[in-house]
């Protein structure tokens, strides 16, 4: 399979898994990422282990990123988007619009001197977004960089020992035999559910916020007071199983992460009370039934999704929900409310769909050709991987990424004969 090349669009966990498998098989892989670094959403998530591993699989991500960084077969193209494609399987021509990234991954040795010297204060204009990035490259933050504020600043460029910073970078064209689309998902924007108060009340967070908080520190405190939360409510299915907002599907991850976080919060402060409001608890998956049973011992499960969250005082939130046992509206107060936001298709999927000529299916996820093949699209040679095709958790995204790689290899093998 040597000297054939494959384009993987999207540097999330699915795309990375595809890329690694393809590279292992001798393909030259272009891993194109719109953002400045690969790893995708999961790279910003946190470990949810207590004494025991809760098997959220987040820890697989940094490891895979390092593998990509170390793999000569994979060239990572960041800050880039696919704007055009021509030809067909075996010889696609792909136009990349490469937003200037300014820092050349090939040259940057991630020494950190640029950050040190960057005059932009307090927020630096160039930095390493988080450990284990790949490419292991510092990025320029246009909102902070003085140069982008009109100043004649060249400090980083002048002082970079590797000469990696270059404010003019050129677009690219790639020639590849096949394409894997792994553009991932968007976290549902909880603001669309205005009544739940996200964005208005400081102590209403989303699952994503918790991920970030635990990823950067190792404990959560109330945004309002800095105190440790004592009485926490999780609200499930925010943006999932909801035809009114056009997401008539189960996101498949929220029940699991909510219960893991609930356990983690209680591990952090054992006296914390946790309530989970739900429609149906999804417990399929190896060993998860047992985990649910464990949770039921320390966590209160309430059937029914609250309609409204109000702020009584900066440190007190009131959750209004229908008490199904009594059949009337009930009010309970909490100091922290976590919205279990689900997986939504990327709003810009349609643009890529147009560029590549592939179909969108239910709810705006990419569609497949054959009901029994979740990778093949209507365009021969273009395959799907991960959450851009439908909701998946991390292990499933990895598996699906590998499956896509397998389909590519099989298809190209068949052509070779």
């Amino acid at each position: 399979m040597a000297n054939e090349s494959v384009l993987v669009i999207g540097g999330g966990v699915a795309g990375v898994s595809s890329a690694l498998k393809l590279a292992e098989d001798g393909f030259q892989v272009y891993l194109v990422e719109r953002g400045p670094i690969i790893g995708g959403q999961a790279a910003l998530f946190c470990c949810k282990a207590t004494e025991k591993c809760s098997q959220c699989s987040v820890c697989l991500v940094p490891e895979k990123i390092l593998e990509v960084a170390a793999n000569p077969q994979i060239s990572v193209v960041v800050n880039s988007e696919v704007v055009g494609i021509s030809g067909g399987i075996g010889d696609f021509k792909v136009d990349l619009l490469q937003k200037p990234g300014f820092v050349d991954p090939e040259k940057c040795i991630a020494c950190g001197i640029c950050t040190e010297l960057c005059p932009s204060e307090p927020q630096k204009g160039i930095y390493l977004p988080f450990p284990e990035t790949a490419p292991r490259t510092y990025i320029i933050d246009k909102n902070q960089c003085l140069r982008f504020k009109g100043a004649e600043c060249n400090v980083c460029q002048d002082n970079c020992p590797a000469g990696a910073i270059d404010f003019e970078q050129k677009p690219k064209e790639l020639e590849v035999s096949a394409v894997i689309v792994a553009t991932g998902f968007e976290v549902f924007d909880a603001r669309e559910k205005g009544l739940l108060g996200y964005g208005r009340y400081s102590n209403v967070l989303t699952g994503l916020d918790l991920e970030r908080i635990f990823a950067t520190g190792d404990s959560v405190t109330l945004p309002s007071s800095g105190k440790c939360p004592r009485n926490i409510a999780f609200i499930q299915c925010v943006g999932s199983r909801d035809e009114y907002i056009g997401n008539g599907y189960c996101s498949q991850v929220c029940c699991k992460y909510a219960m893991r976080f609930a356990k983690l919060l209680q591990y952090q402060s054992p006296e914390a009370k946790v309530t989970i409001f739900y429609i149906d608890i999804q417990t399929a998956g190896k060993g998860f039934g047992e985990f649910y049973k464990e949770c039921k011992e320390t966590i209160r499960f309430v059937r029914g999704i609250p309609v409204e969250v109000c702020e009584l005082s900066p440190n007190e939130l009131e959750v209004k929900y229908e008490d199904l046992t009594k059949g009337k509206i009930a009010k309970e107060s909490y100091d922290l409310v976590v919205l279990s936001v689900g997986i939504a298709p990327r709003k810009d999927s349609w643009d890529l769909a147009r560029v590549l000529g592939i179909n969108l299916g239910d709810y705006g996820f990419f569609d497949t050709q054959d009901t029994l093949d979740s990778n093949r699209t209507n365009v021969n040679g273009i395959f799907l991987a991960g959450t851009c095709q439908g909701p998946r958790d991390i292990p499933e995204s990895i598996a699906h990424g590998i499956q896509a790689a397998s389909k590519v290899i099989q298809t190209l093998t068949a052509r070779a004969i």
Partner: protein
Amino acid sequence: MKAKGAFLPDIVAFCCAQSAYQSADAAGSMRITYPENIRVIRVPCAGRVDVLHILRAFEKGADGVLVLGCHEEACRHLSGNIRAKNRVQRVNTLLQEVGIDGKRVEMFTLAPNQGPRFARIANEVNERIKELGPSPVKSGA
């Protein structure tokens, strides 16, 4: 050389390369500091850490020993972290027999992406060992 008076414990931390060692790196990358008197020794799995390694560390003058492995059920070798835990317990008793406080050796579990947790563990353990004072077998102690 050590500043007189202020007691800086010598702490040996055996770190599983699959998890703890990477979390130590992460702590550094995130510029989260922890006591510099902790000597990290990289091992392929917490299951590689032998009762003997720990005892010898004390012979060489360690004031405390840390064994850091993967979270339970996250061991690549299924039982490595559990074995390590049991060995740490055995060392506890072996040290007690000798008359050294068993609390000088401890086991913790982490994930590779838990830099902050690594730093916290390092700090806590450092404080605990300071409380206990220099190891009684240490020359000059």
